[in-house]
């Protein structure tokens, strides 16, 4: 018994009536830091100990209402704001349909919060190091006896008086409970090898399992059966067709959307006489023409169509678009050059669709007119 620190004096009672009477006495004497231990809740004990009503109901109320409100707001945000989808012709925010989920979330959040608050905040559990643990007293009150424990912390605590009081009440086995030296002097070290080992093990396990799942298991049958299907992918070979190609050529005469076949291939004169520019001259169309001309034509023809190539002789310079010849060409004739190419100039059909070509023709006309303006243009 070398300088043990006293925690409390305890006494054991045999009947519920005796413990209630004893508690009333202790409470009347003005002790504050005492506790009664019973194997099950005794009716009337709260009154005897003069305990105020439990405040846990407020926790349930506050958390439950917050849960309800959060559920409502979240559902509103998800289905009416973030990704609105009309389902069954109902309004995006359809409150009646949200009621079940609001109710469930309320119950769930309030129940969890109340229990956690009680255990971890009110009771400060888990606590297996309390001085009352591992005592004969605890063994008794856990089964069929009723005990009272008056703590040394209490202001009125006086060893002799407390023992006398307990004896007066008729308590048996009056014993002193001491703090366990080891337990109060024990300090938790964060760098304990066991703890570090546990952390490492958890980290390795989690990362290993995640890696295997995400990179291996999900690519094994049956998990990959949506990815690997009995179909031919582009560029894959096929045993079904004689030529071994998985991809098929379109049926003869198939025309892609937006690309009509050009009937005047190699017939510049026919194109010049038969094709007429369908587009009106507007600012919008000229803008498109300018944009396309600057992108596709200007590298060789120059921004103004004067044949001043920016390619520094790597490609033969084309003649100027302002020559007498080109100025007298019909729109269709220019359209034909863009479509079919001329000399070293290739076809621009894969870069420009029909409308864009006509817009470019309009723009070329505008350039020509700018360099060879008539008297009337000055007005």
């Amino acid at each position, binding site marked *: 018994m070398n300088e043990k620190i006293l925690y409390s004096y305890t006494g054991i009672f045999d009947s519920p009536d005796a413990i209630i009477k004893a508690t009333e006495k202790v409470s009347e004497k003005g002790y504050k830091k005492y506790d009664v231990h019973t*194997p099950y*809740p005794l009716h009337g004990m709260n009154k005897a100990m003069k305990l105020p009503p439990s405040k846990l109901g407020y926790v349930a109320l506050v958390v439950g209402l917050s849960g309800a409100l959060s559920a409502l707001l979240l559902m509103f945000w998800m*289905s009416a704001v973030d990704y609105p989808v009309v389902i069954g012709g109902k309004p995006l925010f359809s409150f009646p349909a949200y009621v079940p989920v609001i109710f469930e979330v309320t119950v769930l959040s309030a129940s969890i919060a109340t229990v956690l608050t009680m255990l971890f905040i009110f009771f400060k559990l888990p606590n*297996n190091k309390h001085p009352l643990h591992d005592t004969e007293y*605890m063994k008794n009150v*856990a089964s069929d006896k009723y005990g009272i424990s008056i703590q040394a912390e209490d202001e009125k605590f006086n060893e002799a008086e407390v023992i006398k009081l307990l004896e007066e009440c008729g308590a048996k086995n009056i014993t002193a409970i001491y703090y366990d030296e080891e337990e109060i002097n024990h300090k938790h070290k964060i760098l304990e090898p066991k703890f570090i080992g546990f952390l490492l093990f958890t980290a390795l396990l989690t990362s290993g399992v995640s890696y295997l799942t995400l990179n291996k298991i999900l690519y094994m049958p049956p998990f990959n059966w949506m990815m690997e299907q009995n179909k031919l992918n582009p560029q894959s070979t096929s045993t079904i067709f004689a030529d071994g190609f998985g991809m098929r050529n379109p049926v003869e005469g198939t025309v892609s959307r937006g690309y009509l076949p050009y009937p005047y291939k190699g017939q510049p004169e026919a194109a010049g006489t038969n094709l007429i520019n369908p587009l009106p001259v507007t600012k919008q169309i000229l803008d498109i023409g300018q944009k396309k001309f600057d992108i596709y034509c200007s590298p060789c023809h120059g921004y103004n169509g004067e044949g001043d190539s920016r390619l520094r002789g790597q490609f033969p310079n084309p003649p100027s678009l302002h020559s007498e010849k080109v100025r007298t060409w019909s729109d269709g004739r220019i359209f034909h050059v863009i479509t079919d190419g001329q000399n070293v100039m290739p076809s621009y059909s894969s870069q420009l669709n029909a409308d864009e070509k006509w817009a470019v023709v309009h723009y070329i006309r505008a350039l020509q007119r700018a360099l060879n303006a008539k008297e009337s243009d000055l007005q």
Partner: protein
Amino acid sequence: MSVVDYSQELSVVEGRPPLRSLDDLIAKPLEVKPNKKFYIALSITLSMLGLFVIGLALTFWFGIGMWGNNNPVGWAFDIVNFVFWVGIGHAGTLISAILFLFRQKWRTGIARFAEGMTIFAVMTALLFPLIHVGRPWLDGWLLPYPNQHGVWTNFTSPLLWDVFAVSTYFTVSLIFWYVGLIPDFGSLRERATGKFKKIIYSTFSLGWRFSNRHWHHYEMVYLILAGFATPLVLSVHTIVSFDFAVSIIPGWHTTIFPPYFVAGAVFSGFAMVQNVLIAVRKIFNYKHIITVDTLEKMNKIMLVTGSMVGYAYAMEFFIAWYSGVQAETFTFFNRALGPYAWAYWIMVTCNVISPQLFWVKKIRRSVPVMFVIAIFVNVGMWFERFVIVVTSLSRDFLPSSWAYYTPTYVDFMILIGSFGFFFTWILLFTKALPVVSMAEVKAVVDGAQPSHKDH
């Protein structure tokens, strides 16, 4: 068992046993090695569980085409089993929460076990929605979480309400159960002799000290949880019934479904609790804790809920005729006289006729007879869900799309396996945890509470 005087409140626990003997008795199964009978029982349930695993493996590998589901019977054994097992769970919450609010002390002997059954039944039930999607590794999509697709779940769908209802029900039941277990873990900790056992019980008891300053809040939490669990249990089967009632299929589209489903759930749940408890009280010698009086009270609840279910059957027929809706009228004729008439009449015999025998006091207090009736009720309630799901779907509006549904062997493997899953948990539970609440039973023994003579 001779004469019972109903005018007096009966003792919950017979014979005023010493409190320590109750502890000894309840903790005994945890402290002795399991005997041969336990292993035989466990091997049977594990074999059934094996069937379950094989059935699920076939389903996951080859797809749910292994099941008998066809067009139009797209829902069959999967949802029948789901509703059946969720319903079984409802008795536990009714006993632990609703009877607690009504201050029915007789619940203490059976509450722990019934709550345990709730948890195992809901676990079994939860498997069915998870497996019926065919690719259960994508089940996470049921929950509204921020994902790479950018979409959210559909909050106007009863199936989503189901996800919330059943998962909330499971979580709250588990919390309720654990809160009830904490003091018992404390008692077991003090009894434990082995070091290993002591560590486990200390961990789970969280260092419970039986302090009255704790009991004070503890009782409040128990009351709050009971207050939450009561509307929750009613909401769960209501929402399960919405899966049907919100659709427009004749025979499903009725407003009577929520109360009818809740009554049916309590009915079947009590039958299951009854069956298992009769075995438990015999094997573990708990006849004075789970008394015949308690069993009789359970029979009365089965009589009440069974009559409610019978009334609902009759009312469905009446409304089918009274509404004048042709499809509705046909559906009910078809139920009683159509290709599934056999299932319908099994249901009526088991659910409506058999519980009516409980009007007779002798039958109500005879353990073997009530055991048989409870089995009948379980069979009947499974068939009730089968009748509702399959008859309505197999013959709906268009005769050109009618089809007869026949379950496959995989369906039966999963059905039998689900019982194996459930009973394996039950068996492990009886050996791992006290099946009767020690703290609660001790509190209701005669003389365990102060007499308040001088107050």
